[in-house]
């Protein structure tokens, strides 16, 4: 297939179409709406289900119902809409259904704004809905990755009977880049042996997230955590840049990760031994490689478009082995390359002490910036 110039939202939608999605339910919200619009055009012409729901609450519950039939289903939204979906997300997790959801994150909390942000990290990666569940979370940083990870999301969802998020941001959704779409897959896929489609010729089936006896729910909780551990053993993905001899290790995902890449490359051109780890799976988190990097680095810098939500995970897995600092922009502000480069240079010239508060320096800078 040839490279085409594609806008992220439509590219993800078309990737889902080609991955064989049979039903899409959604609700318009910026900066995700082009995805829904593309689906409204493509799905009917292919004889597949598209419905603009009355709300994100309804949309996720339509997804829930459609997923019970054993076909590939999805929805997409942006931060406030995803908050509304949390109810259904928890039910889907509790019923162990394969579902793909795309969150094109925007600034928050509240109505916030429509600019790119990574403020949903905790909500998506660490839950958001009630109860213990562990979705797979994939973070694209380019239009090509947005396509590839959408297809991967369906495969992983099916493989593990799991909820899979593609956690993008407004930049990924609105940006155009040359990218290659996958070939069209057939929609006639094998129907799994748990699907509810009418009991014709077999015993009836029930799909539910109820386990009224706590002991039974606990068995389910255990099954979910064991599945998450299997996923962690098999599916951790990340990308490394200049890490072989890196003294300053930068960690960032999605748009923040690609801005950090520019900064790291420039630092290298200035003779600084900087490298970048860009997590692709935020869940399962690339904790092992981060721990290994921590053992050899002089300092780490976590870069995000939030107040350091992934930072807390990095801190957890580095167990005080290395000084860690944080640089983040919030509220829909995207950092520029020079801001991150300045941080890398500072860390290269003076290694911070172990045990510092990773946000202290950053908070001081932010206050100065705003005064």
């Amino acid at each position, binding site marked *: 297939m040839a490279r085409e110039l594609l806008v992220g939202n439509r590219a993800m939608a078309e990737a889902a179409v080609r991955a064989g999605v*049979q*039903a899409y*339910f959604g609700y318009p919200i910026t900066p995700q709406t082009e995805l829904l619009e593309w689906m409204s055009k493509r799905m009917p012409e292919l004889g597949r*289900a598209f*419905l603009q*729901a*009355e*709300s994100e*609450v*309804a*949309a996720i*519950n*339509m*997804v*829930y*119902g*459609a*997923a*019970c*039939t054993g*076909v590939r*289903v999805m929805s997409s939204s942006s931060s406030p809409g995803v908050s509304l979906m949390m*109810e*259904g997300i928890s*039910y889907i997790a509790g*019923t162990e259904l394969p579902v793909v959801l795309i969150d094109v994150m925007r600034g928050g909390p509240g109505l916030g704004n429509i600019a790119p942000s990574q403020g949903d990290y905790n909500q998506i990666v660490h839950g958001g809905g009630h109860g213990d569940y562990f979705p797979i979370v994939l973070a694209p940083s380019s239009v090509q990755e947005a396509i590839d990870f959408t297809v991967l999301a369906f495969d992983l969802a099916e493989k593990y009977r799991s909820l899979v998020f593609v956690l993008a941001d407004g930049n990924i959704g609105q940006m155009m880049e040359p990218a290659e779409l996958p070939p069209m897959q057939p929609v006639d896929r094998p129907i799994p042996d748990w699907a*509810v*489609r*009418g*009991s*014709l*010729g077999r015993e*009836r*089936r*029930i*799909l*539910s*997230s*109820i386990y009224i006896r706590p002991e039974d729910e606990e068995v389910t909780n255990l099954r979910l955590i064991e599945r998450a551990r299997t996923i962690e053993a098999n599916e951790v993905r990340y990308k490394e840049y200049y890490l072989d001899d890196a003294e300053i290790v930068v960690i960032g995902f999605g748009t923040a990760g690609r801005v950090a890449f520019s900064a790291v490359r420039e630092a290298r051109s200035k003779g600084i031994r900087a490298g970048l780890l860009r997590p692709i799976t935020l869940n399962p988190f690339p904790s092992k490689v981060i721990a290994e990097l921590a053992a050899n680095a002089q300092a780490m810098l976590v870069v995000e478009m939030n107040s350091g939500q992934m930072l807390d995970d990095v801190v957890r897995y580095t167990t005080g082995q290395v000084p860690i600092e944080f640089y983040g922009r919030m509220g829909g502000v995207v950092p520029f390359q020079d801001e991150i480069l300045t941080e890398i240079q500072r860390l290269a010239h003076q290694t911070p002490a172990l045990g510092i508060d990773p946000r202290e320096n950053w908070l001081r800078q932010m206050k100065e910036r705003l005064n």
Partner: protein
Amino acid sequence: MMDAPAQVVYKRPESLTATPTTYCPGCTHGIAHRLIAEVLDEMGIQEISIGVAPVGCSVFAYNFFDCDFVEAAHGRAPAMATGIKRVLPERIVFTYQGDGDLASIGMAEIMHAAGRGENITVIFINNAVYGMTGGQMAPTTLPGQKTTSSPYGRDVEQHGYPLRMAEALATMDGTGYSVRRSLHDPKHIRLAKKAIRMAFEVQKRGLGFSIVELLSSCPTNWGLSVQESLKYIEERMVPVYPLEDFKVNPALIGVKV
């Protein structure tokens, strides 16, 4: 005395499982379940039907029906049914919902399902109270009715008025069938069954959204005996919730059930 040949005059419908009831004594949920099961049997649709259970007393409805079932979040059964029906339009999809589920938390989902003319069947149990949580005020609680969350009686100045869902849903262009029936005596139970049959016929014929609202008893939370409860439906509920056909698609005229 001569031995008469044994004849089966009454048995459990095929579409009901042999599960002992978990409903309170005197509750009419069991009757509603049986009527639906009889209709599934009579129409020969047991194996192509998918039920959607609600949250409320009938949260375990799926234990009683011998057909495929899913369990929805509170109020979202019409959305979940929509998702199933859109993928499997040839299947029969029905929801079974109580008054808190359908008329309160699930108001948006039920109205929009009707507005879209979603080709599903809804069996709506109206007993004017939240049963599962122990008898709180429902959107269908009668004016003056005492509940555990309206201990002085439902004061319409404070809590507003009861919602008449069968009437409201009949105003939707997408609705093919919207009626109210009652389960308080054998005659009305027979009429209720006919209405349930008609609602499934609507779906089978692709005539849009169908709903049967059933006035039901809740002796436990009303604090009444079984007999008193049935009388309560007849004397107190029916005047507020008239037993009428609010919308019947003209294509159904002449359909005998």
